[in-house]
């Protein structure tokens, strides 16, 4: 058994910089590289892509990344765990094997973890007694069942460990927990069992710290003036010991900062009850551990505690929830805010003349630059900004009504007050709103499967 394992996360979400993982591979030692591509609405978008093209529905960015780094990956023997499979992990795997073929790499083992996608099993599971009541509101799924567009279980880390045990160098999953991408390799390397609650909690906490990439190494940090060289920010690297104790760091010479404060910022991100951070593998206690500086750009985390996992998986569903349209114009001064308010009133009045009225809950007016993000909060607004961005939007169940809004925005340039500009990008269009439906499902009803393929 290794006395420590080096795991880095190079992608915090789909759309994060490709330089993160490239530099992690290039600029220091690593055993594992993890990559998180999935947000809650991503699965629904992928499901839509797949319905148009049976070869689509996964994170194509991942395949592009592997195409750039495969020779280095193979030479260094770094293993990769990515949830890039989306709703079509086999298509993702096929694309990876094709990349390997083009590079002339044979014997590359790619594993697929599946079982998370339960869209086609929903009715059977409901017949077996699963209610899928909304975790936030308590509403039963039946009310929106016919509008569900994706349904995925957050799988745990053990199938990932199983894939690594079968010799995979690249593990492709669909929906799983973000920290599981890190916990899976630790289970594999150190032989942690399904009831090693404190160690599973430690691996989960380590995974949570790195899951948003540079958000723990100085990105999005309150005291931003103190963070050096954000342009060359180093993505996080974990040094984990068999006991579960670990150090958060980054490669030497990279930008950014790892301190107790930057790590704590990320620990507080997306936090609910800190004493009960629920995953399918464990209930991690974020009030249990100790954080301490361990040299420059190194933070040690020790004493993590966990409690037995619950008998359920979380399910993330998305459903068609109406339409929205948003557009913006820039209004220069003098009197920028007053003119922007007039512009907003003009748009609503013209639409009303044509028979389209939007209620207070169906429309949005923002005056970006006058203090929109913190409007109504002490110190958060300015009465006379030199210019503002007027942002208007509407939403509702009627697509035609939502679509009618867009064409009334740009005419303000010639038929509103002076100083209206910035209409590049054309008319705003109606876009479908993707509703989010969190629920639970009994673990025993969800079989998982691991398969290894070779180039």
């Amino acid at each position, binding site marked *: 058994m290794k006395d420590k394992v080096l795991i880095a996360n190079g992608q915090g979400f789909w759309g994060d910089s490709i330089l993160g993982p490239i530099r992690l591979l290039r600029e220091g030692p690593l055993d594992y590289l993890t990559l998180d591509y999935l947000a*809650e*609405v991503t699965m629904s978008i992928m499901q839509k892509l797949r319905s148009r093209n049976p070869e689509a529905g996964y994170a194509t960015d991942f395949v592009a990344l592997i195409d750039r780094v495969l020779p280095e990956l193979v030479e260094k023997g770094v293993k990769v765990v990515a949830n890039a499979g989306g709703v079509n992990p086999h298509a993702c795997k096929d694309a990876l094997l094709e990349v390997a073929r083009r590079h002339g790499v044979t014997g590359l083992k790619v594993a697929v973890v599946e079982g998370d996608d339960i869209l086609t099993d929903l009715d059977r599971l409901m017949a077996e007694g699963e209610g899928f009541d909304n975790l*936030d509101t308590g509403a039963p799924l039946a009310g929106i069942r016919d509008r569900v567009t994706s349904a995925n279980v957050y799988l745990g880390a053990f199938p990932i460990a199983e894939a690594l045990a079968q010799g995979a160098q690249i593990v492709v999953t669909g929906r799983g927990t973000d920290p599981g991408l890190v916990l899976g390799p630790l289970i594999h390397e150190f032989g942690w069992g399904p009831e090693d609650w404190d160690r599973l909690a430690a691996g989960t906490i380590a995974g949570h710290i790195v899951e948003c990439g540079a958000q723990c190494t100085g990105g*999005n*940090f*309150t*005291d931003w*003036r*103190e963070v050096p060289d954000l342009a060359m920010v180093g993505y996080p690297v974990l040094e984990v010991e068999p006991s579960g104790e670990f150090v958060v760091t980054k490669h030497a010479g990279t930008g950014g900062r790892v301190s107790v*404060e930057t790590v*704590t*910022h*990320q*620990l*507080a*991100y*997306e*936090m*609910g*009850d*800190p*004493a009960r951070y629920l995953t399918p593998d464990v209930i991690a206690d*974020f*009030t*249990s*551990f*100790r*954080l301490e500086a361990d040299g420059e750009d190194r933070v040690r985390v020790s004493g993590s505690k966990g409690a037995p996992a619950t008998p359920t998986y979380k399910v993330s569903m*998305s459903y068609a*929830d*109406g339409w*929205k349209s*948003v557009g913006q114009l820039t209004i220069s001064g003098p009197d920028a805010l007053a003119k922007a308010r007039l512009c907003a009133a003009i748009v609503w009045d013209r639409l009303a003349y044509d028979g389209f009225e939007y209620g207070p809950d169906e*429309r*949005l007016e*923002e005056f*970006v630059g006058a203090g*929109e*993000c*913190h*409007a*109504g*909060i*002490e*110190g*958060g607004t300015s009465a006379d900004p030199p210019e503002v961005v007027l*942002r208007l*939007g*509407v*939403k509702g169940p009627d697509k035609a009504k939502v679509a009618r809004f867009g064409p009334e925005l740009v005419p303000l340039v010639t038929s509103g007050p002076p100083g209206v500009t910035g209409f590049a990008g054309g008319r705003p269009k109606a876009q479908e*709103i*993707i*509703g*989010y439906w*969190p629920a639970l499902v009994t673990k025993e009803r969800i079989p998982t499967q691991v398969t290894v393929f070779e180039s």
Partner: protein
Amino acid sequence: MPRVQLHRIAQARSGDKGEGSNAGILARSEAAYAFLAEHLTAERVRTHMAAVNLGGVVRYEAPNMRVLNFLLEDSLGGGGSASLKTDAQGKTHGLALLRMELEVPQEVLDATPAPVGG
């Protein structure tokens, strides 16, 4: 007592959580944590954020990290992709909280390093 912005004695990180957001407030010292644990109540946060958050506020404590975590239950103008707002994910809610003005005892300020550059 000196009147300062919360920013003087705390840092913050926020993001979306369902139809609301969470804002973690990170005290800059043990003295600041003890002061905030007593005075930065859920009710105080609810009042300060009332223009943004239409729902309730729940507070959790993590003294090992010197963090007070606030859940703003209805602060995004709709969950999922339904929000029309610029800050549909509550990324700026932590900074909004740091604008709060508080009367802080001098000894707490003396024990709490100020942020560089104000």
